[in-house]
């Protein structure tokens, strides 16, 4: 089914279809039609569900809203299906009954808005732990951001496999390593994992609530700290949403510098992951030691160019905060060049080590079916043969002006994810070179930031961060943020552990975990 046909058929059952500036088709449907339309878009038309979120529109007398965002990857468009729910009984029929990718989104909306997804096969709490009283819905407008909640002891059951001799291994939230807090529950009868489930949202800080009522400039520090390791890509996604609302045209040099920032971040974190997986995960110390040493050089590059070690502060609404001189560009290119030449010899060492390859190969296999059903993002999806990359499918920043094709692998194991990262590092190096060259040749240093005023409206913003696709939906009202949805790829990828963990042995789980390197903070918000 081509896009035109799809839109035509949608138009028939929608009360309102429009196309927004940033490339998004919005179709409003009736509450009763919503599950059917959404399910058929996913199941029949094969569109990936990239975001599902709720809004509190009671101030405008429209009750609550539920929005599902699908990607029209070939047409470079997004498709948002939205519906209204009455304020007094906010419920709709769950689409998780058939669309696995909606699983967590619906539970999230249930906790944060009190919107019931009727018939959800797994309607336990997600965000709220035992200590959150029942009927607490922080993202409702009548919930003050600084409410002091009472202590509670609500049930938060974890899945159990029945059978004599089966037991559970609880890990976390306070891990032995220097890892973020999350709780994992294994059901095992020995070493082999039977089921695996995570309990996350420990670091829930209320980011989405904290963003409400702020101007975009005030909101940016929070966005950059959604997940400390992907500050640049989160800032990019958020700024693009804000810019789309404001109708702001970002100068070319800024677009290229944004590419530079995001690719530097990608290169750094992929290298970090390489060291972490091949080194820390398997105990191959030479990889860890040298990998982290090179990462430190890149962090210091960030300190020189960005004024901090986490690629923060460059991407701002309207453009970038500083234009960078060609000397700075050269510094970036040279440093990354040097890092790559060292890193590639490390990779050779890794490929030469039989013990290491034995640990990585066939470990933590994620099948293509599971990756598709769960709506996997980023490296996890691409290593399992799902060829999705927002840099190509939904060009943003300067990517449209640079040649870039994207990479995939099909094995879906830890080794594939490692090698995909290596490939993406070399791509990142080329993109950095090209972007720096573009800036040198074609843009002037004075044109790096456009005005970006706070206008009302809503828009999507996205970026292909190093972890995968970041998708934000921002609605501004009265010059401040009314609702900001921040969706880190980790949110989509966490449930994958339930698929790629079982069948492996417990001591290989850290390796699986590191091979995805998901953000807790970015998921928990």
């Amino acid at each position, binding site marked *: 089914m081509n896009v035109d046909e799809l839109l035509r058929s949608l138009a028939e059952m929608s009360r309102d279809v429009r196309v927004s500036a940033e490339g998004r088709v919005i179709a409003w449907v009736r509450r009763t039609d919503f599950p059917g339309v959404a399910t058929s878009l996913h199941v029949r038309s094969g569109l990936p569900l990239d975001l599902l979120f709720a809004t509190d529109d009671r101030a405008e007398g429209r009750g609550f809203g539920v929005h599902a965002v699908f990607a029209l990857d070939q047409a470079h468009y997004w498709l948002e299906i939205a519906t209204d729910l009455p304020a007094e009984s906010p419920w709709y029929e769950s689409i998780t009954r058939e669309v696995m990718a909606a699983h967590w989104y619906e539970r999230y909306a249930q906790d944060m808005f009190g919107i019931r997804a009727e018939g959800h096969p797994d309607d336990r709490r997600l965000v709220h732990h035992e200590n959150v009283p029942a009927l607490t819905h922080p993202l409702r407008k009548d919930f003050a951001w600084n409410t002091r909640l009472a202590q509670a002891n609500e049930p938060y059951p974890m899945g159990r496999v029945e059978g004599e001799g089966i*037991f*559970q*291994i*609880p*890990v976390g939230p306070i*891990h*032995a*390593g*220097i890892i973020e807090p999350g709780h994992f529950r294994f059901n095992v009868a*020995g*070493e082999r994992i039977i089921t695996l489930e995570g309990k996350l949202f420990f670091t829930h800080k209320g980011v989405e609530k904290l963003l409400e009522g702020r101007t975009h400039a005030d909101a940016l520090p929070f966005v950059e700290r959604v997940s400390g390791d992907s500050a640049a890509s989160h800032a990019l996604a958020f700024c693009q949403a804000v810019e789309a609302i404001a109708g702001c045209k970002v100068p070319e040099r800024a677009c290229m510098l944004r590419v530079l920032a995001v690719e530097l971040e990608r290169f750094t974190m992929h290298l970090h992951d390489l060291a972490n997986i*091949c080194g*820390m*995960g*398997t*105990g*191959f*110390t*030479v990889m*860890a*030691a*040298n990998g982290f*040493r090179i990462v430190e050089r890149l962090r210091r590059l960030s300190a020189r160019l960005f004024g901090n070690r986490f690629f923060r502060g460059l991407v701002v609404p309207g453009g970038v905060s500083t234009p960078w001189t060609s000397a700075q560009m050269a510094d970036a290119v040279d440093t990354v060049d040097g890092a790559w030449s060292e890193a590639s010899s490390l990779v050779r060492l890794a490929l030469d*080590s039989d*013990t*290491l390859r*034995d*640990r990585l190969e066939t*470990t933590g296999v994620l099948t293509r079916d599971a990756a598709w059903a769960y709506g996997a993002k980023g490296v996890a999806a691409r290593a399992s043969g799902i060829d999705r990359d927002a840099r190509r499918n939904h060009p943003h920043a300067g990517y449209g002006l640079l040649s870039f094709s994207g990479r995939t692998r099909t094995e879906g194991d830890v080794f594939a994810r490692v090698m995909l990262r290596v490939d993406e590092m070399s791509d990142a190096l080329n993109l950095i070179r090209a972007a720096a060259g573009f800036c040198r040749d074609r843009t002037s240093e004075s044109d790096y930031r456009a005005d970006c005023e706070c206008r009302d409206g809503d828009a999507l913003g996205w970026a292909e961060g190093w972890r995968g696709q970041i998708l934000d939906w921002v609605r501004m009202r009265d010059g401040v943020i009314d609702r900001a949805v921040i969706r880190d790829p980790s949110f989509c990828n966490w449930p994958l552990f339930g698929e790629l963990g079982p069948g492996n*042995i*417990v*001591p*290989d*789980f*850290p390796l699986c975990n590191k091979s995805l390197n998901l953000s807790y903070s970015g998921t928990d918000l």
Partner: protein
Amino acid sequence: MNPALLTTVQVVVVVTFAPLATGVVRRVKAFLQGRHGPPVLLPYWTLLTLMRKEMVLSTSTSWVFRAAPYVVLATALLSAAVLPLVARGGIAAPLSHMVVVAGIWMLGAVFLVLAGLDSAGAFGGMGSSREMTISAFLEPALIVTLASFALASGSSTVDGMLAIGGRGLLSRPWVLPALASLGLIALGENARYPVDNPATHLELTMVHEAMVLEYSGPYLALMELASMVKLAVFALLLVNIVLPAGLLTTATGIVALAAAPLVTAVKLGAAMVLLALVESSMAKLRFYGLPEYFFGSLFLGLTSLALGLFAGWL
């Protein structure tokens, strides 16, 4: 020299140098990683600090948990007393019979395993299950390896194995596979690469560390000292098999006593550098890949034994 004095000197020297050995291997590994590394004396400070810290005991644990550190350390000390590490022919040397030594090591492992299980957490049990597996499946390899040494030397006490003079055991080159096997066993028994990663922070992958996860304060100090002593014992044993020179005997004079610590330090240092190189050059094995490791070490031991028997016939 008095045999009782020999044993005493040996225990004192081995126990004194054991933390140093751990310090050295950490330092060398750090060097190989391009780092400066921790001070070599750090393990001493760690042990002393632990002795001064309060102990937190889990309410789930029983007397077994409290008894285990003593037994584990005692078995380590006993193996340090009976084996020919610094001196040969000490008063405890007749106890270095290979079956006894294997029994002592197993006794220590058993109490470590019991302690791990007593803590009522999943990690302790995990470490215990793995440790027990490693100990149990390395037992045949250990016996066969020592048996081939016994065949080579004509003595079934380890002390006697080193007493054959000349170029020692290596004058019979067919013990080389067994020596390699003993090396593999030493790595496994001491929870080193490629069986366990002594520096890991990942609970799910641990073996030795997982069992002592619940210990604190002085008990932890005893446990750590025990594993340091065990490492030093294995290291010195391996070095002495290759190079039996420099061992004190009842024939050496009291003057040689002064040199003993130096010789021991050099031997330990060499072994630790080698260990650091081995550990830095490979990844840890997959736990369910260990059967190949067990079988490999058994095969090496059997090879030696077969070659030795064959050589005897010729």
